[in-house]
């Protein structure tokens, strides 16, 4: 009995967390999966099971596939852009060519986008990109825009503009993470490569990148999941418009559920998103274990 009590102690310690996670995480996920197999659950008084019908309907919806294409573009460009910008800016902040004061100032400026909330970012860029805004005024000097040039309302370019704003608002986290990684690389490695006559580019290719690889892999996977779930910025900028041109998957789910009241269809679409996120999460966890083993 005593032994049993002693063995139970660790489980009692983690019990509050397990209960909280079960109620706040597992139960809602289970409910969403359950709704996806019902005939408009949540809206109908007595919903009935419909098997895979909601999944078939979602897969047959051309707007869903348009949304998948847009999400793919949005996620890939955001990840590549975030990592590239992070590498460049982190190198600038890590260089010995500038004084410490200059670097501190630059660090504050570079990190600013991360401090703003999604709403502030949206309002600011909406003002910049509105037809009578600063962007058209400046581009007007070189004949690239007029006061009637539309950015968010032009369905051919709206996704590019929204992706650019997402890049701008998200890079500081990745920059700080890469900077921390750069500062962890031993200067001895660079010194010995310099003695061996390696150029800066070769040092970057054969020292910096391999040393940063575990961090970069983790960042790519985190960015993938975070960008896939992006909602606030796009919703406040364009609400998915014009004509679904910026309706990434999270907005598709929101619109289907809360504006059209098709909660079961939205649940089915959300399950697809869950599966993709789960796959990436498995890779992320494996990567973390591998880093710990190394």
């Amino acid at each position, binding site marked *: 009995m005593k032994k049993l009590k002693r063995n139970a102690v660790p489980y009692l310690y983690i019990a509050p967390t397990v209960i909280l996670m079960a109620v706040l995480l597992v139960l809602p996920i289970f409910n969403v999966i359950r709704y996806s197999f019902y005939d408009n659950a*949540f*809206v*109908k*008084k007595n919903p009935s099971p419909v098997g895979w019908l909601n999944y078939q309907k979602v897969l047959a919806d051309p707007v869903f596939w348009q949304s998948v294409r847009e999400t793919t573009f949005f996620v890939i460009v955001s990840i590549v852009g975030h990592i590239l910008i992070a590498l460049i800016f982190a190198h600038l902040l890590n260089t010995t060519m500038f004084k410490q004061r200059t670097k501190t100032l630059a660090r504050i400026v570079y990190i600013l986008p991360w401090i703003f909330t999604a709403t502030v970012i949206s309002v600011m860029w909406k003002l910049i990109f*509105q*037809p*009578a805004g600063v962007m058209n005024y400046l581009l007007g000097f070189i004949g690239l825009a007029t*006061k*009637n*040039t*539309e950015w*968010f*309302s*032009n*369905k051919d370019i*709206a996704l590019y503009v929204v992706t650019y704003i997402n890049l701008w608002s998200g890079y500081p986290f990745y920059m700080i993470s890469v900077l921390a990684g750069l500062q962890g690389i031993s200067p001895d490695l660079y010194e010995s490569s310099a003695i061996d006559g390696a150029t800066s580019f070769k040092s970057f290719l054969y020292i910096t990148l391999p040393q940063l690889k575990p961090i970069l892999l983790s960042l790519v996977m985190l960015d993938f999941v975070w960008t896939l779930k992006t909602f606030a910025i796009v919703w406040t900028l*364009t*609400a*998915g*418009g*014009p*004509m*679904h041109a910026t309706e990434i998957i999270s907005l598709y789910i929101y*619109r289907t559920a*809360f*504006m*059209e*009241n*098709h909660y079961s269809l939205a649940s089915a679409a959300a399950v697809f998103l869950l599966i993709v996120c789960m796959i990436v999460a498995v890779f992320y966890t494996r990567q973390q274990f591998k880093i710990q083993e190394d």
Partner: protein
Amino acid sequence: MKKTMKRVLALVMIMALIMGVVACGSKKEEAKNEDITLTFQQWFADECPEGLFQEICDGFTAETGIKIELYNAPNAETKTTLLSGAANGTIADIVGTDGKWVSDLVDGGALTPLDDLFKEGNVDTSVFSDMWKYNGSTYAMPMVTFSYPLAVNTDILAEVGIDPESIKTRSDFLAACKAVTDAGYLAYGWNATTSNPAGLDHIFLNSFWASGGKLRDDAGLFHIADNDDFKETAVYFKELVDNGYIAPGYMTAIEADITSKFGSGDLAFCNPSISMLSIWASDSPNLHFTVIPMPVKDGYTGTTYADYACWGVGISDHCEHKAEAMKFIEYMFSAEANAKLAQGKGCFPGSTVSDPDYSETSENFQKAFTIWKAATPRAEWNAAIEASALRTGVLENVLLFVNGEIDVDTMAANCQAVCDEVYN
């Protein structure tokens, strides 16, 4: 004599006894009412001047003893709150609703049919300016309404030498837009974002309805494919777009974008909710504007219809005191309570017996009321099945047409298909 006195005394005592019993009965009924608390889920209280809506509800409590507990949520969240409340049995007794939500709320078990309650409570239904019916039963009524007249910046119009009152037809309006655009101003604001298709109702269909257009027949079915009025309205809007008379950015603009542009004096025309008229009057003292009826198609002399938004009210299916809830609805449509709400909020009454005193309001508000009274209300999405999805589908096709991606017949056929998919 003594005998007579005894008889009189006995009679008085019997009378006193009867009176006592009657009084006890009335007290008992009052005591019963005092035990009842009706909950009311709505977004109205937050949008009224502070305390106004609660004060109106308190008037009902003072009259009947029945307490009203207000559950407030923003308009955007109310529908979901009601549907989830109906699903898990926590829905309020009385329900604030938009006309466009009625079918969804009925299907979700959030609204109860009112016709039997009208009969049981001897309710005078002539006080309701409109009754929203779904599958033949009445489920809700608009308590107050908000119209969307055409607001005109009089400074801009004066600069281009046009009298706003002279704009009667679509041709007049196109000419005014041309003059305004030629003078370097933005002409007309259209919030055509599909994420909130209010711009379909309050601008596009407002123009369509003003000229007698009708989307649905008496059975509630949609007829768009061969609807010449609808096609004409679409062609008119394409002309506005093609000529640059619609302010840029309309494909993603929301109502606030348009009203703020008009408020800052950058826009010549827009269709604001009448609640904006008081806001501009107090917040934009340099803005000089007037309101006029929506221009109608050339040569049209028939009845003019006016689009409106509203705050509707119904009773939840889960309500345990439906008769008392009906009493509250009757009270809200009484002359005094309804007028107080309309005056306080700055909107129009939903009760036919209500006669609000707008003498303290701005000249433009009074003019908007005159325009409203001269027209017949029309908002055909009320109680339509899946109204939100239908409106989005119709607006998408209208936008495809005005952007030149499909022709007018394809647009009308697509809009019909959107409605048929839901109604078949």
